[in-house]
């Protein structure tokens, strides 16, 4: 299999971008090519693929939903965590090396919390031919599962 060209990857990203913007109402969206240019970061190397970062309307990973919602319902809600989205296509095969390199080159969450909140996390956007984008949350390690 041939390796994906940059143009193809950018096409893929534009599909995910429009989906995030118009279907899921993400805000504060930035396109990331090779560099994660927020603040003065200490990035190990270039990102292996073009990515997107933005804020979802609601917190994606929240192991303690009950306690946090009590605070937020009264006053203005704090902005949700910045998420990093990796667009991939349903028919492509990704190597473990690619995943590892994505995680390696992402900044550690700025929340500064202990444990799970500090784990690196990406949102994998799987694009399929009928325009469905399936999202998966992927953590760099084991985290406490979300309560159902």
């Amino acid at each position, binding site marked *: 299999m*041939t390796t994906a060209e940059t143009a193809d990857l950018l*096409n893929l990203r534009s599909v995910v971008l429009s989906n995030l913007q118009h279907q899921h109402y993400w805000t504060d969206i930035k396109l990331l090519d090779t560099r994660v240019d927020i603040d003065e970061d200490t990035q190990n190397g270039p990102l292996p693929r073009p990515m997107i970062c933005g804020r979802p309307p609601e917190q994606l990973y929240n192991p303690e939903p009950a306690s946090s919602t009590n605070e937020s319902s009264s006053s203005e809600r704090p902005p949700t965590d910045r998420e990093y989205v990796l667009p991939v296509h349903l028919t492509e095969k990704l190597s473990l090396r690619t995943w590892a390199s994505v995680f390696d080159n992402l900044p550690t969450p700025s929340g500064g919390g202990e444990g799970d909140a500090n784990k690196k996390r990406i949102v994998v956007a799987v694009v399929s031919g009928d325009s469905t984008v399936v999202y998966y949350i992927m953590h760099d390690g084991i985290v406490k599962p979300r309560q159902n």
Partner: protein
Amino acid sequence: MADTSANGSATAATATPSTKPPHSAKPKRPNYNVIHADPLPVVLYHSPPLIPHNPLSLLHHLYLYFFPPVQSHKVVYIGVFSPVTMSVEVRDPTAVLDLWNKGFWGKGNLSRSEPTWLNRELRRLGDTQVGETSEEITRRRRDQRKEMKKERARKEKEELQKIKEAEAKSKEDGSAANGKLIIADSKVVVGIEAEISGLDETVTESTQPSIPTEELGLPTPPPSSDELNISDAESKTAMVNIGSETLPVSVPPTSKSPPVQLAKVVRFDNNTSTKEIPVQKKVTVQNQEHLQLMLSEAFFLVYVLGILSVTTADSTNPLPLPEIFKLFLRYSTFPPLPESSVSLTSLNPDNSFLINYVVYHHFRSLGWVVKSGVKFSVDYLLYKRGPVFSHAEFAILIIPSYSRWEGREENVGKEWYWLHSITRVNSQVKKTVVLVYVDVPTADEVKGWGCEADGLKKVLGKYKIREVALRRWIPGRNRE
């Protein structure tokens, strides 16, 4: 088991017709039988059967012969092939509506299935003249579920709190008999204390009816001491020692407090504010959505029904069928194959577009509405009449079979776990997994297609399809 319980609840609901009135408040559903009356976007004329000795039937056919049904033009929809989405996009509103209503073709790229983005956006911006979309209904249901879960989590924490209190109290009483048991439990409680201490405030405020701790099979203090404690404690808060830590434990109100109402917060974004304004509001939004046809769908519409013409973004001239075929072969995988690697004279029979299309063609021809099954980790979903009428009954898993190929191993890399997880996912949503084996012809069998007029038909005829329906059998449950 699940079936019987579902049936049981259904009969119970019908047995009590007195609970009907609240249902009438619901907005009426559109009549899908009328909207989706045509199974395909083609116009058909029915003529009665021709019976040679019956002059009346002959007359009808003669009439049709001399005065053919008026059809001013053959309706051909225009789809644009997009290398960005690797699919065919339809943007003309009438074409989108026709293709969706007559056979459920395609999917709105910003919607779950039917293209409703524009309506959703209009409603979001406060237009009052647009009806509710299915996405909004789902959203509301999910919000309600979320509230329910929140409530449940809160209750669980409250229960924990109660247990802790009870234990603390009985420890205070210093009952020597069950002292050991309580110590063992309090260790567990201390582990979760961080969570509870954060919630103390909310717990004291709530009017939640207390749940008897007996339900949880945990030691309870004698009721007399409980009452005594409440009457004694003026502040309704007692400081109790558990182990080395000191934490405030609130005394809940007596069990006679009224049951709390489940707070169902239904948010309609901006709609709540606009509803107060009696003036009808009209908003204009640029439609960002298109109807996206899978490659297989688009090819079926072009090749079998002949009601779609595919163009590229560069020109308005419709592409000839071989060009479309070639394009689809190239864009069936990511990254797309280079143009040089795909040729119609030496076709690769193992191309994923060909295999997917053969299966799509097979089931569409049998009258099923075939949709993508990516959300259920399968290749296709089969709907009997369409997604608005019923859930998909069958989940299609395509397995190419290379029995005619020499020296090629069958189905390498698929493990039993893979199949098992797929069947489990699909039995959760009451779908039957169907393994569709596609016998892939060898490269020699499909050689030299470009020369013949009906070559594609011959190529597709070389593929054989075998279906195997799969169902998990549970010996204890399915005895019959």
